């Protein structure tokens, strides 16, 4: 999947992946896609909840080898 910006949130724990994501989205323009890679297992539910509450669209959420990858389209 294409993306405009990437955020490495590996090794970070709640709530840092969400806070860094929010900060990065603030620097992006509408419709741009952010790719986030995290290792916090709690981030799967957290990113879904973040997207639902902020209106930024979670395009995909996947797991491979203990890493979680999220694609988020800015509102």
């Amino acid at each position: 999947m294409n993306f405009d910006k990437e955020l490495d949130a590996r090794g970070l724990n709640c709530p840092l992946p969400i806070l860094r994501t929010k900060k990065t989205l603030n620097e992006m323009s509408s419709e741009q896609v952010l790719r986030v890679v995290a290792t916090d297992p709690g981030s799967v539910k957290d990113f879904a909840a973040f997207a639902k509450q902020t209106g930024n669209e979670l395009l995909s959420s996947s797991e491979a080898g203990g890493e979680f990858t999220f694609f988020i389209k800015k509102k």
Partner: protein
Amino acid sequence: MDEKKMAIIATKGTLDWAYPPFILASTAAALGYETQIFFTFYGLQMLKKDISDLKVSPLGNPGMPMKMPFGPKWFRDINWNIPNAVQSIVPGYESLATTLMKMTIKNNGVATIPELRSLCQEADVKFIACQMTVELFGFSHSDFIDGIEYGGAATFFEFAGETDICLFI
């Protein structure tokens, strides 16, 4: 759409209990909530200029696991069940526990309290210090960081009455 709002009353002044208000406030701000924290009693410790000296106490805290943040796995898995009577007579026990807790925090990629506090400030979380307890404990405004407001219960209710979420921590 009206912005959602959250208010927190923060009353604890230890390293462990500094986490819930700062985590919830910074996350709420990231989710678009207008957020305020009212610091009162021991919670004022969290507004001091230097908060790197906040401590955690295992004394009288049976819920706190006492595990070592270093060494081989079998060693780290041991829960050191040290009696209160022993904890209370060992000088520097709290400082030792705090050092170990900070190592555990770092090992787990958990943010530090100074880091979370500045993330709250960057996200425009409003900090209000309880003026009554500032005086009660003999603090002065110069002990605290800039950019905070001072007020009382009525100040808290002015905002809290409009909130969607209101927590006492």
